[in-house]
């Protein structure tokens, strides 16, 4: 009996790899698509949050009496409405979270720990009343000293955010609390011996600023709780099953009581893997016995939802004259924000991952500061550490007078290389992306005055995880694919393509639906570049289940053994001459008679997808520096990355381009600016400068395909890696344009001007 493929497809593919029309396209361009704030319920209230204007203070009292008395106010919640949670770490998207911290982040308890920290929330008949009520809530604070920057937070005597925080990972354990939550270390070989063998050593320090994921759609949800405790939540999220789990846990509800539906999502990039408004909206809805809608303003998104961390990184790399790296070391401290859990561990593991190195050591510190708690942002942790490493490598190439791509090729990780975090790599595409970069016309194109070219590579692991898929074969033979991962980057299209391929039917016969949490078993979120990888694997297995049932039905109709039928290109046929002569039956033929042969045909798969393959990429960028203003213009940009197999090349290219553009912002203009009062001064898109279309050139892309042998179609994840190389590639390009290096992101005009001034002063000094 034929079955769906379980190894990379060797046959000619009909749908996988095609640029099919996107199923969500029409709804999105016509405005029909419903995002987080687009659902309206009868009798709905407006929920608003009272947020701390102080970066650090003890809450002495909260008086809601006047606000509650305001006509139109239907419910108010504070810390008293959420049970305290014991310390318990659970996986949540990018990293482990602690419910003790989550319950404090959604609503401050003993202290406010950052400007924007929720203190109370109101549900009222309209927004004006809700805002008025917020003003009537009286909070008495004891103001405490605050600390914003990671360097300051690590100093002895720094204001403590958590008086009981003892640094983990240090032996013997410290006796005094500090803001350092954790120290992590990864080491391979003998670092000292490695540096002794080096002819050249580059040692540099780098600083990066927190950057927001910048999703265009703010956090939004609408919650409804009936009198008997059955609840519904409509929310913009990357993982509605994860939202359900967190909300049920935080509110002490049975999971079955809560149904969560994922709306269309206007960007997430990791930032919509955690809960902020959702448990608050549910608590308000329960209290008010009316639906409550909550939508963050852009200012709230900046002040209260997680950015990627800012960091300090020190890198030391040694190499022989011919460019072989003998030792590499990086020490890094990442801002976690108000609660522990920065992605510094991933930063340490990824820092040197693209390379085949014998002697490596990385040390990381997870540091709390009076800022919003960080959240995942594409390849969490990796862009920061790899930025520093890729910049140092570029300087090493300069000093050795070796082409920077050749230096990388000489040290590139390949199949069988032991990763710096332990295991040996399977097939990976580092060498292939470097070679594609060297052969690309961009790499040898002529540069003009004040222009420079930079390259950098990047790595991300990718993940699988728990995933369900169901395929309902409809009465006419068309199929509905039910999947549980919200579609952020085109997964509905790619899942449909893989399903059509596995079933051997026309793509137009497949429609993908994102299930709510009551329709399908637990499915982990869309993140970690897992949706197309794991969803495709589950859909392929569900298709195998469908095929098995189709063959069984045909065998029953023909009254022959099941192993005497075969499935091919959407038809069941007798398997060979001895099986008898019967006309082939299409899915539609069998589906039409399904009621007479045993009932509906539904294929299902529930898996914990394993075998995700890392994705590596290399970027080339040309910049021009305006020496009068310090403005850096990106002239040309090429992204080259291993996709394993691009199921829908246009979406893959879109992910590559999006990562590059976000990276351009991270490199050149995006940063959180805090005043001495601990308040963010640029909480809006006017002052927090993300790139817009006119800031960037058309981003060229090259899809490299080194198939992942563990996936039926060879898929790797591709959404994370594109954000890793841009910062270093741009920094290296600026370095070559100026003839001097900058070591701090963003490389905004004032910093570039300062570097130009210092360089010119140095030149004049030499001239005298």
């Amino acid at each position, binding site marked *: 009996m034929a079955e769906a493929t379980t190894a990379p497809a060797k046959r000619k593919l009909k749908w996988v790899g095609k640029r099919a029309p996107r199923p969500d396209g029409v709804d999105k361009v016509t405005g029909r698509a419903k995002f987080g704030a687009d659902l309206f319920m009868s009798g709905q209230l407006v929920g608003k949050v009272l947020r701390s204007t102080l970066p650090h203070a003890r809450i002495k009292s909260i008086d809601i009496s006047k606000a509650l008395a305001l006509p139109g106010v239907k419910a108010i919640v504070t810390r008293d409405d959420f049970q305290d949670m014991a310390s318990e*770490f659970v996986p949540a998207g990018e*990293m482990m979270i602690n419910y003790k911290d989550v319950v404090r982040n959604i609503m401050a308890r003993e202290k406010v720990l950052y400007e924007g920290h929720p203190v109370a929330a109101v549900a009222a008949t309209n927004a004006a009343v809700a805002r008025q009520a917020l003003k009537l809530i009286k909070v008495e604070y004891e103001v405490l000293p605050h600390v914003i920057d990671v360097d300051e937070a690590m100093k002895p005597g720094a204001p403590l955010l958590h008086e009981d925080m003892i640094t983990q990972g240090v032996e013997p354990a410290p006796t005094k609390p500090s803001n350092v939550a954790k120290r992590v270390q990864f080491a391979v070989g003998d670092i000292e011996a490695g540096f002794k063998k080096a002819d050249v050593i580059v040692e540099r320090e780098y600083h990066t600023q927190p950057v927001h994921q910048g999703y265009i759609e703010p956090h939004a949800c609408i919650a409804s709780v009936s009198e008997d405790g059955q609840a519904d939540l409509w929310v913009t999220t990357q993982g509605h099953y994860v939202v359900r789990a967190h909300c049920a846990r935080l509110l002490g509800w049975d999971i079955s009581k809560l149904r969560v539906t994922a709306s269309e999502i206007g960007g997430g990039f*990791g930032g919509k893997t955690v809960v902020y408004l959702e448990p608050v909206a549910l608590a308000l809805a329960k209290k008010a016995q009316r639906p409550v809608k909550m939508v963050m303003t852009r200012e709230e998104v900046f002040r209260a939802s997680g950015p990627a961390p800012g960091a300090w990184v020190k890198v030391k790399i040694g190499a022989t004259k011919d460019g072989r790296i003998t030792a590499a070391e990086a020490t890094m401290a990442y801002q976690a924000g108000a609660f522990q859990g920065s992605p510094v561990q991933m930063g340490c593991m990824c820092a040197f991952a693209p390379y085949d190195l014998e002697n490596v050591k990385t040390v990381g510190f997870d540091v709390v500061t009076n800022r919003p708690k960080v959240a995942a942002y594409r390849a969490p942790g990796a862009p920061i550490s790899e930025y520093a490493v890729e910049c140092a490598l570029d300087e090493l190439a300069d000093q050795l007078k070796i082409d920077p791509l050749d230096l990388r090729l000489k040290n590139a990780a390949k199949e069988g290389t032991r990763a710096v975090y*332990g*295991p040996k*790599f399977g097939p990976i595409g580092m060498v292939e992306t470097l070679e594609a970069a060297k052969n690309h016309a961009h790499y040898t194109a002529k540069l003009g005055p004040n222009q420079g070219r930079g390259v950098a590579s990047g790595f991300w692991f*990718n*993940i699988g995880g728990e995933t369900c898929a169901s395929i309902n074969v409809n009465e006419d033979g068309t199929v509905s694919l039910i999947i549980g991962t919200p579609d952020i980057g085109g997964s509905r299209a790619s899942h449909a393509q893989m399903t059509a391929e596995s079933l051997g039917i026309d793509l137009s016969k497949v429609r993908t639906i994102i299930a709510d949490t009551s329709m399908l078993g637990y499915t982990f979120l869309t*993140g970690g570049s897992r949706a197309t990888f794991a969803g495709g694997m589950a859909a392929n297995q569900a298709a195998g289940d469908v095929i098995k049932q189709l063959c069984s039905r045909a065998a029953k109709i023909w009254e022959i053994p099941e192993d005497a039928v075969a499935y091919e290109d959407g038809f069941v046929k007798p398997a060979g001459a001895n099986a008898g002569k019967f006309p082939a039956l299409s899915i539609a033929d069998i589906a039409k008679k399904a009621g007479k042969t045993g009932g509906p045909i539904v294929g299902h798969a529930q898996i*914990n997808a394993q075998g995700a393959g890392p994705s590596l990429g290399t970027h080339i960028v040309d910049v021009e520096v305006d020496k009068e203003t310090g403005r850096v213009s990106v002239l040309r940009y090429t992204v080259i990355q291993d996709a394993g197999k691009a199921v829908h090349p246009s979406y893959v290219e879109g992910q590559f381009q999006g990562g590059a553009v976000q990276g351009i912002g991270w490199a050149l203009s995006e940063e959180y600016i805090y005043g001495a009062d601990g308040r963010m001064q640029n909480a809006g898109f006017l002052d927090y400068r993300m790139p817009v279309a006119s800031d960037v050139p058309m981003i060229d892309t090259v899809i490299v395909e080194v198939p992942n042998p563990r996936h039926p179609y060879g898929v790797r994840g591709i959404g994370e890696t594109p954000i890793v190389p841009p910062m270093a590639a741009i920094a290296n390009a600026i370095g070559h344009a100026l003839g001097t290096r900058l070591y701090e992101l963003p490389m905004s005009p004032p910093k570039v001007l300062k570097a130009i001034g210092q360089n010119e002063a140095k030149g004049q000094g030499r001239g005298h």
Partner: protein
Amino acid sequence: MARVVLVGNLKQFTGGIAEFDLEAATVRQLFQRLAERYPALGPHLEEGIAVAIDGAIHQDAWLEPIGAASEVHLLPQIGGG
């Protein structure tokens, strides 16, 4: 017997020993035997650990088989954005 390697901070719970041989047919057996041998390590195997078997990383996969001559790395669980 499989060669087991602890990556990152885990060796703090084994008295500094990062590599050893252990007989285990599955990830669950591996965790059980590790917890028996190093009780301080046990709680840290409950959540947040990935297991690389002969290079392939597995997460939350108790039933994944481990070969007699496999190389097994225990490393922090990997997420993503």
